[in-house]
């Protein structure tokens, strides 16, 4: 299934995708649009992506996780306009034991944020606008 989507993310669907009879634990992470950024009140975010490269880089990161841990994983990132509380990214990792599930889930979200060509423009309540750049 595609990594990028314009539709709302469904954590339950991701969990169902990775669940399997041999799995004893599923760790998930949901990244949400929050109402503040460095002290300023946020109104909405607009996410854009370089789609073919984002899909490829995501597949690479997923393969890296599956090579490091015995996990089943799923990742999804939303693009378009998101409001406060909307989920921008969702990650799920299932494994026989919980340590692998946690470690793979953390690896996936850290690498996705660092390596996948996605950008977000922040619209503040005071009318100002900023491209978000990692610190």
């Amino acid at each position, binding site marked *: 299934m595609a990594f990028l989507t314009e539709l709302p993310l469904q954590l339950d669907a991701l969990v169902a995708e990775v669940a399997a009879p041999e799995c004893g634990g599923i760790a998930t992470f949901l*990244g949400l649009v929050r109402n503040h950024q460095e002290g300023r009140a946020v109104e909405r975010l607009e996410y854009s992506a370089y789609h073919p490269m984002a899909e490829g880089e995501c597949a690479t990161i997923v393969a890296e996780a599956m090579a490091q841990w015995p996990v089943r994983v799923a990742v999804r*990132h939303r693009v378009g306009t998101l409001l406060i509380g909307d989920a921008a990214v969702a990650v799920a990792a299932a494994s026989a034991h919980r340590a692998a599930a946690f470690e793979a889930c953390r690896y996936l979200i850290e690498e996705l944020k660092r390596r996948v060509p*996605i950008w977000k423009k922040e619209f503040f309540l005071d009318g100002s606008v900023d491209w978000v750049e990692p610190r």
Partner: protein
Amino acid sequence: MPDTPSLTVLLFARYAELFGAAELRLALPQPATVAGVVEALRILPGGAALPLNPLVAVNARQARSDQPVSAGDELALLPPMAGG
């Protein structure tokens, strides 16, 4: 310039705003490398604000600045990534 060898440059996020465009068509520069394309972009209107070494992908794969480019390639200039 139908006969001039050219390549496509995709611009995203902050960079698209610099140039006022999401896509440009450029004549293959000399030298025909990633760095050569970046130099050609820097002299276009808006291009001076580009960083000296922006992140670039060639045909959707991250590329070093000395990587050769060919006519028909798709280059993408990538601002710092900010997913999640």
